[in-house]
Structures are given as C-alpha cells and as structure tokens.
C-alpha cells in the first residue's frame, strides 16, 4: 500500500516538474550584446587590422623604453614624494569631512528625513564625477600645482568613504543606541558611545583602502597639471625620451605596490 502511494507521488512529481527555462531570452540577450559590440566598434572606428599594423610601432616604443635611464630617478623623487603627500592630505581632509556626511546619509541615524534624501542625492551626484575630471576643473580654478590635486582627492575621498561607511552604519546593532537613549544620552553621546565603537575598525580599514586608491589616482593627476609625478609623463613623452618615461612608470609601480602591500597587511591586522 505504502509503496503504491509512493509511486503515485512520484508520478505526480514528474508532471509538476519545472520546464527547462526558455532559450528565447538567452538568444535575445546574445543579440543585444552583439548589437552593442557592433555599434560600439562602428562608433570608435575599432579595427584590429590597425592594431596589428600599429604593433611594430608599439614594439619599437617598448624597445626604446629599455634600458631605463636610471639617472633620471633623482629628478622624479621629489615628484613622487609630492604624490604621496597629496594622497595623504587629501585622504585625511576627506575623511574628516566624510564623518558628518556619512551620518546624514545613513537612514537609521540621519537627524531628519529630508536632510537624508538631500545628502544622498548630492553624494550620488558627486560620486559620478571621476577624480581626474575634478582635478581638471580645480586646476582651471586655482591654477597649476598640488593644491587642486589635493582638493580633487578630498572630494573623491568624501564620496567613497561616505558611501562605504553609511552602508556599514545601516547594518549596526541598534541595542547600544537604544540603551544610551533610554539613559538620556543626547545625539552626540549616542554617536560617540553607541556607534563609533561598532564601526571603528572597519572605518580605519576604509580609510587605508581609500589612501591606496588615492596614491594611484595622485600618480596620474599631474597629467592635467594637478601636481605629483604625473607632470613628468608629458615632459618626457613630449621629448620622446621613452627611457625616462620607463623610469617613471617603474618607480610608480614600485611605490604603489609597496603601499598596497603595507595597506593590505595593516587592514588584515585591523579586522
């Protein structure tokens, strides 16, 4: 008897088996992607024939880059230090500005609804503008030099750290905050004793991560005149001194990898 029932349920299961997903959707997606690729390659005049005919040029360029002219190293050390300074200052100021911004943007901590919506909107708009674009605008306002670069990095840092932190803030435990409210703590006290201890380590990790990104960004900001080692690219490429360019590239790679490594190790210790 029981066997019979089992068989019946089996049969029943078979008829209710889900149908395999339709293929039509996949085909349409494929067609859409192919159309996008085709349109884009038309728009950009992409031709791989050109790439292959250009290959010898590029090989030639690479050949001229080696051996690197190490004596140029002395000239760019200053630029590299300026790059690190810019990243450091930009990250620091940006972090300080980001703290109030992130509180306004966290849905569970914002003091008022409309302030929350307004700051979210502004933050999203700021985050759409790439750092180099900001730098180019600040250069035309403040003139050449590291100051516009620092400002661009500051704005970029505010955008990134605020976003990462408000997402974290929205997942914190409400317990300590409620306890502080019950004990009569005001807004500042609730933040300092109820929120900060919960996010401290992660926040420091975000700051370090942003610093790593900012070093990379600062290395190219010079291309638009915003200070740092990037200034030297144009100087050397313009005079076709590729062996010097190679020194800049290698030096930048070494410094960025070193800072990344140190940052990753520190972040691992923090969390």
């Amino acid at each position, binding site marked *: 008897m029981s066997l019979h029932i089992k068989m019946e349920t089996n049969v029943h299961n078979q008829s209710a088996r889900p149908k395999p997903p339709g293929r039509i959707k996949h085909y349409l997606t494929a067609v859409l*992607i192919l159309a*996008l*690729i085709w*349109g*884009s*390659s*038309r*728009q*950009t*005049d*992409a*031709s791989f024939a*050109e*790439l292959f005919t*250009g*290959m010898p*040029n*590029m090989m030639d*360029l690479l050949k001229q880059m080696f051996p690197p002219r190490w004596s140029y190293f002395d000239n760019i050390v200053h630029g590299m*230090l*300026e790059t*690190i*300074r*810019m990243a*450091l*200052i930009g990250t*620091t100021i940006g972090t300080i500005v980001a703290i109030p911004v992130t509180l306004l943007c966290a849905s569970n901590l914002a003091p008022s609804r409309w302030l929350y919506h307004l700051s979210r909107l502004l933050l*999203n*708009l700021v985050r*759409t*503008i*790439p750092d*180099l*674009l900001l730098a*180019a*605008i600040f*250069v*035309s*306002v*403040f*003139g*050449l*030099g*590291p*100051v516009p670069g*620092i400002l661009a990095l500051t704005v970029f840092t505010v955008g990134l750290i605020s976003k990462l932190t408000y997402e974290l803030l929205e997942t914190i435990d409400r317990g300590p905050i409620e306890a502080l409210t019950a004990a009569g703590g005001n807004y500042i006290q609730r933040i300092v004793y109820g929120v900060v201890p919960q996010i401290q380590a992660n926040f420091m990790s975000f700051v370090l991560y942003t610093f790593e990104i900012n070093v*990379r960004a600062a*290395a*190219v900001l010079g*291309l*638009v005149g915003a200070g740092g080692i990037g200034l030297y*690219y144009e100087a050397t*490429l313009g005079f076709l001194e590729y062996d010097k360019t190679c020194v800049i*590239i290698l030096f*930048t*790679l070494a410094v*960025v*990898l070193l800072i*990344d490594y140190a940052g990753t190790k520190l972040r691992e210790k923090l969390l």
Partner: protein
Amino acid sequence: MNQVMITKPRKSPYRWLVYIALLAVYIWAFSGIPFTGIKETAGTVIQSIARGLFAPDWDYVYLPEGEDLLRGLLDTLAISVLGTVISALVSIPFAFWAATNINRFRPVSGTGKVTLSFVRTFPELVMALLFIKAVGPGSFAGVLALGLHSVGMLGKLYAEEIENIDRGPSEALLAAGANRLQLLWFAVLPQVLPGFLSISLLRFEINIRSATILGFIGAGGIGTPLIFALNTRHWDRVGIILLGIVIMITIIDLISGAVRKKLV
C-alpha cells in the same frame, strides 16, 4: 552575589610612539605643499563656473555638423562598452591561470596573480598614452587602454569567483567519466557565468567614468571637448558637458545596478 567585574582593555604602551610618528608624517606632508600658489582670480572663476553650470550652453547638445555633446557621450559609451567586452574576454584565461583550485601547482596560480596585480597597478591613462603612440590618437586607443587595464581587476575577481565554486558538479561529472573540457563546460562555466557577468557590469560602471577622462590625453570620448572648453574658459560649455556626464553615468549606474540585482 556573584559580581562580574568588567575590566577595560589595556591600551598598548607603544601607542604614543604611533601618535608621534603619525604627527611627524603629517608635518612632513603639510610642509611640502605650497599653499600660497593659489590664484587671486579663484573667486571670480568659481563665480563664472557656477554661472556656467546654471546656464549651460544648450545649443551644444546637438549640432548638425557633429562634434556635439550627444556624439561625445555616445563615443564615451562606445569606448567603455568595447573596452569592457574586450577585457571580459581576455580576463577569462587569466582567471583560470590565477585560480588556485584549477591550478593546484602553487607557482602557476601565484605567477598568474602577480601578473594580474602588475596589470592592475599600471594606470590606464599611461596605457592610453602608449596605445596612442601605436594606433594614433582617437577612440580606439582608449578602447585598448581600458581593455588591457581592466584585465587586472576583472581577472582577479573572476579568479575569486572560480575559487568559490561548488565542487559537487565537477566531481559528479568526473565520476561519470567526463574529460577536462566537459568539466569546464558543464560544471564550472554554468556556476561562474552569472558572477562573471555581474563583475563585468560593475567594471563597466567604472570604465565609463574612466572613458570620460581618456579624452584629456587624446584617447577619444567626451574628455576632449571638455578639456578644450576648460582651457578656453567656455564655462557654459563646461557646464553642459558636466551635466551630460553626470546624467549619463547616473542612468548607466541605475540600469547596471538593476541588471546586477537580477543576476545574483
């Protein structure tokens, strides 16, 4: 009554050293920046930028003879689409090279990982400068720069996706006598494909931001008219281009975010 004493965690005695070191670093950093070089005209320039942003040059949106905002944005979009597609394809072999569960022999996956991080640290603008020398200035140089630079990040994230797959399907196929290619096609790819697509879309969002600035150095897109307008101080034109960039990126982010939510 059993009272539990809560003791404060002890602070490290070396923390003052860390504070002093940090202070020294900051003094070093601030002392090296010439804060005096700010132009006196900054105030008036900010005013004219604000005026330009609020009264953008609407005529620039569409010009019948070309070189207008819409075509610039379309160019930027095309650069990032093609760059992302190229890097998404090129990254796949790199990811399998760098994934530790595909290549059990450590040095193999290790070299893969190092190669990817090397590509990642190479700035895309510098790559664009090199490609401009090879294929000449224009959008195609930008496509190649984005395509190559993105491999560093995409390859790394793809490899992590591969490392996280469930071993069950591949073991089942292995037990049924499948060869390596069949394993890849029927067990590995179906598991990683949604992740790959989602990661590529995320990269597309990053690439479209990069593509807006590639034009600064002559690698196509909206950056070229923007830097030109900045240098010639056509603030109303700067305003409309910025507006266009912000709107385009916001729309792309919304679409891509919605698609990614469906994928994973």
